[in-house]
């Protein structure tokens, strides 16, 4: 299995298209950082909105590396599923399209083993993509903007997370985002089993994610308890929960606290459940599949 996993990773990282995602993320993060470097004040005022009428916002304090990283994650994490689908959707369908799948399957490799390895390789790619994003969003922002307490605007209030209480939240958020994006990878992987070229599963994955995200965001009460809790897209932004803290009697954030940990864990459980369901279905379908490509 380890040998097969190494082969899969080798194949993924020898494909030029794999690095499109890394390039795209680097480009957008640098553009955001440059924009905030030169016009950060306007952005902070805009973001704080009405709150700035009640408080004197210390602009220089707000615009620090942690805050910039939060802005970046908020802006781009929702679009990363497309980049994940590029690789996961290609894993089986791409090989079927190239014709290599039939050669692979004439080797003494079990179908279940191959599927597990291919999915794990997609997950490793997803985690590496997120690490790359973390490296650029967090470390580069800290390098450009320094560190300070993180100001998180929430409706009509702001949370001020102490500098020393911030880094673990980012690590937890990236870990959660890895699971969320691995769910998208599992969906693309499942769809990849049915197709013989990778465009279909990639487009289908994005269509499903877009439709379900719209449903998750829809403000129609009848869907609140009947549909939304069961959609994986409703739980994908659960990483934000790590930045929402409990407030003490002094109206200050309690260091190390999370406002609603059970909700985060529930979201995590649902996402993991979807992963198991998608991957198991993909394996069962592939075990019975006639390879005609």
């Amino acid at each position, binding site marked *: 299995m380890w040998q*097969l996993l190494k082969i899969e990773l*080798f194949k993924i990282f*020898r494909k030029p298209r794999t690095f499109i995602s890394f390039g795209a993320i680097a480009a957008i993060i640098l553009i955001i950082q440059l924009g905030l470097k030169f016009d950060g004040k306007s952005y902070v005022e805009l973001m704080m909105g009405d709150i700035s009428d009640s408080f004197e916002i210390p602009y220089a304090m707000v615009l620090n590396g942690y805050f910039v990283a939060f802005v970046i994650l908020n802006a781009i994490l929702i679009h990363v599923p497309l980049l994940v689908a590029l690789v996961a959707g290609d894993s089986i369908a791409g090989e079927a399209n190239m014709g*290599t799948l*039939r050669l692979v399957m004439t*080797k003494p490799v079990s179908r279940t083993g191959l599927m597990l390895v291919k999915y794990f390789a997609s997950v490793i790619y997803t985690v590496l993509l997120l690490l790359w994003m973390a490296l650029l969003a967090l470390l580069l922002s800290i390098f450009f903007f320094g560190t300070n307490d993180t100001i998180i605007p929430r409706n009509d209030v702001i949370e001020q997370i102490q500098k020393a209480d911030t880094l673990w939240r980012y690590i937890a958020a990236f870990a959660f985002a890895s699971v969320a994006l691995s769910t998208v990878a599992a969906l693309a992987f499942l769809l990849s089993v049915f197709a013989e070229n990778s465009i279909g599963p990639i487009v289908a994955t994005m269509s499903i994610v877009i439709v379900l995200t719209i449903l998750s965001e829809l403000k129609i009460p009848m869907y609140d308890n009947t549909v939304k809790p069961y959609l994986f897209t409703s739980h994908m932004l659960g990483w934000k929960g790590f930045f929402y803290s409990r407030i003490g009697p002094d109206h200050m954030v309690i260091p190390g606290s999370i406002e609603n940990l059970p909700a985060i864990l529930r979201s995590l459980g649902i996402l993991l459940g979807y992963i198991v369901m998608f991957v198991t279905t993909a394996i069962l379908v592939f075990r019975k599949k006639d390879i*005609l490509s």
Partner: protein
Amino acid sequence: MSAIIQVNGLTKYFKEAKAVDDLSFTVNEGDVYGFLGQNGAGKSTTIRMLLTLIQPTSGDINMFGMDLRTHRHKILQQVGAIIERPDLYRYLSAYENISIFARMSGLKIPKKRLMEQLELVDLANRADSKVKTFSQGMKQRLGIAIALIHDPRLIILDEPTNGLDPQGIADMRNLILDLSRNHKKTVMVSSHLLSEIEIIANRMLIIDRGKKIIEGNVQELFNPAKMIVELQTLNPAKTLETIMSTKWKSFVRSHEHDKIIFEMNKVDIPELNNELVENGVQVLQIQQRYSLEEYFLSLTKAQQYVATFEN
């Protein structure tokens, strides 16, 4: 001589369409086994079932004395194959491709041995070139190197000469003969070209529309004593009626326009002629032919012909 492949009652349906129909055959150790059929006859489907790419609807496949369903892993360790085109990872080099597939076979093969294998197919000087820069013939040679890298006992080649130029075809033919004679490999090779099979195979199977037409020793099947005989008469309808009411019915292979094709011994021709004349058939000519392609077509068409006539 032990059986390397034993197939019994193999059948495959794709939805309602029957691609392979109750097919049985045996490939013995050391055979170069020709698997003949026209395009769409079911050759590739059968080969894919032997390689576990397609699941049979029914029937049994035993290879090396083991059931393919229960011993897939052990069996495939001893098989090397090319199915139709040798599609490889185009963005990787020849060396990277052969290295990947060697490792997939569960073997740790040193670089020296991989390079020797590339040398064998005359690709050592292009080891670092990406496969996307290769011609069809080079890809085919690399495919062969990959199929042989784990030193398999059985090599299955599905239409290996497709898309090759005459030199490539000759090279492939020589390679198959070399594998059989000098390396004692068992080779199963499919083709729609009878002439190819005649040159390289010692045994062969002909299928048509998924069904076995004939299986046997190539020398015996192409026995010159059994000839293709073409009969032309002035009154084809009466001729056909006469023949179908006599023992000559069993020698008829096909019937087209004013010609009736027989497969028969040369010595029986005068008797056929006499009987036709006695029955008032005006014989224009009886022509002996021996064309491999006609033989092949006569066999496959004969099945259709007999079925049509009996209906």
